[in-house]
């Protein structure tokens, strides 16, 4: 009897798993496995693997030239990987590219539109190319026009649009077929602060019913909206974490802050402290060289005896910026 009950319990959990699979909750929408791509002697992307599920916003973070765009272009099938594979909604992009392409919308960094076309014409062209027609196309046009506030711009030629509207039309073409995953390459590049906030809000809304992958070299962006962060540097994946995990990933250390020019050499050596470095104006910061818990009461007494003024002592944590710089070898800018 007990065995029977146990058996039933297993069956129920199996059914739940199958139901979740069918509803797409557990299914990875994008699976990239060991992607590698070289251009001549340069290795642009090396052994990059990741997965993304519905509801996730995955941020690709890395300095310019780190391999973000190359990775995105391999996922979208625009570039064939030398090794590895990419699957979108279970469809291998190299085996059935047309079916795989139905599942995603892609906005390249340059936002290329056809200048001589009107916005409505352009969006209808993309919609038709994606197999929408008749009422379905009209409904998709209405939905996307409303969502992105493109109503007043529909009759405008694409080459007369401002940067902000170009961006919206680019997003509209990526969203018109209501894809399972939206892939955006540097979507906030060149926008003003208000437009950046709008795009971030839109990305959040989009992820409610689908997955979003976007690349950026702006750290605040990642911290502001991503549910997961992938850090790429010199073509290699060096971190795949949630923003919280990445914060935990930041190392911390004991430090003591004193007023004036810092502690005497004798005191530093005695307590295993590094030489002082300038902190806030009029303050000097000494870091502990070892990770062992320092003898704080003795140190505090000795500092007072030496005539210095103790301002603060405690653990200091790296900011996300410092983690990023450390992970990318101190290179935050152009390679």
């Amino acid at each position, binding site marked *: 009897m007990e065995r029977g009950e146990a058996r039933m319990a297993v069956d129920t959990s199996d059914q739940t798993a199958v139901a979740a699979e069918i509803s797409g909750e557990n299914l990875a929408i994008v699976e990239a496995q060991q992607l590698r791509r070289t251009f001549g002697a340069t290795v642009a992307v090396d052994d990059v693997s990741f997965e993304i599920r519905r509801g996730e916003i995955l941020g690709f973070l890395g300095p310019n030239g780190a391999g973000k765009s190359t990775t995105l272009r391999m996922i979208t099938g625009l570039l064939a990987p030398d090794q590895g594979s990419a699957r979108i909604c279970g469809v291998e992009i190299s085996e059935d590219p047309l079916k795989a392409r139905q599942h995603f919308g892609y906005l390249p960094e340059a936002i290329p539109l056809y200048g001589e076309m009107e916005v409505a014409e352009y969006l209808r062209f993309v919609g038709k*190319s994606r197999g929408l027609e008749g009422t379905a196309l009209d409904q998709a046009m209405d939905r996307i026009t409303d969502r992105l506030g493109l109503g007043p711009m529909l009759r405008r030629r694409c080459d007369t649009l401002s940067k902000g509207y170009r961006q919206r039309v680019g997003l509209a073409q990526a969203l018109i077929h209501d894809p399972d995953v939206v892939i955006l390459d540097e979507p906030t590049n060149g926008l003003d602060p208000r437009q950046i906030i709008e795009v971030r809000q839109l990305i959040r809304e989009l992820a409610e019913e689908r997955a979003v992958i976007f690349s950026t070299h702006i750290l605040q962006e990642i911290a502001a909206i991503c549910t997961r962060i992938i850090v790429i540097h010199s073509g290699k994946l060096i971190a795949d974490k949630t923003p919280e995990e990445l914060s935990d990933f930041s190392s911390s250390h004991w430090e003591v802050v004193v007023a004036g020019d810092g502690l005497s050499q004798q005191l530093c050596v005695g307590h295993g402290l590094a030489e002082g470095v300038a902190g806030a104006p009029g303050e000097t910061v000494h870091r502990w060289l070892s990770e062992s818990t320092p003898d704080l009461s003795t140190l505090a007494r000795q500092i007072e005896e030496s005539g210095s003024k103790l301002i603060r002592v405690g653990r200091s944590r790296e900011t996300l910026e410092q983690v990023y710089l450390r992970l990318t070898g101190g290179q935050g800018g152009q390679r």
Partner: protein
Amino acid sequence: MKSIMTVTRRECGSYFGTPIAWIFIAMQIAILSFFFFQFSPFFVIESADMRVWFGLTPFMLMVFAPAVTMRLWSEELRTGSTEVLLSLPIRVQDLVVGKWLAAVIVLVASVVCSFGIPATIAWLAASPVDWGPIIGGYLGTLLSGMMFLALGCWVSALSHNQVISLLVGVFVGIILVLVLSPDFAAYLSGTYPALSRVVESFGVQSHFRAIERGVLAISDVVYFLSGSLFFLALTVFQVELKRQ
């Protein structure tokens, strides 16, 4: 088929929505009409034919076809819109054929616009007009035009610079029309008869003249259609190469 039509419609909108197609049609007709009325024996011996018109056609197409097609891929490569285009669920073959068909429609429009010439001939002619060579000439224009436009599509996919695409297109056109010409074949026939036959069979003019005489031989039709297919296949290959 549906996706080919979607691409063709977009490209046609681009051709006829901007001055490109109209300039092509107007210039082609103006230049051909000038030579036709100026140098043909039309008014002198009252010949009711269009031999001068169709004699010039291969040379016109040699220059104008790459001018029409140069933007088809070069422009997309320059702006990066191929990134969006190639991420759409459309086969590359369909993209290539769709774009080429749009250029063919521009050619058909220019042919239709020139119907005023044979209408004038028919109206002025004292004796009944021999329609065979005229219909043959138009057929030859369409068939050879299709091949020149396919050639133009291919060179357009080679470079993101439209001027380079145009120059390479005209250069290959010159080889097909002027180098592989019947005159050159005749020059070679004495010393290298085999080579002469090769020049004759690969040159545009010999096939065009055969059709223009009003004799529609399968071999000439096959030449132009397989030539078109060959250049379209090269275009597909070239576009697929962008993924590599």
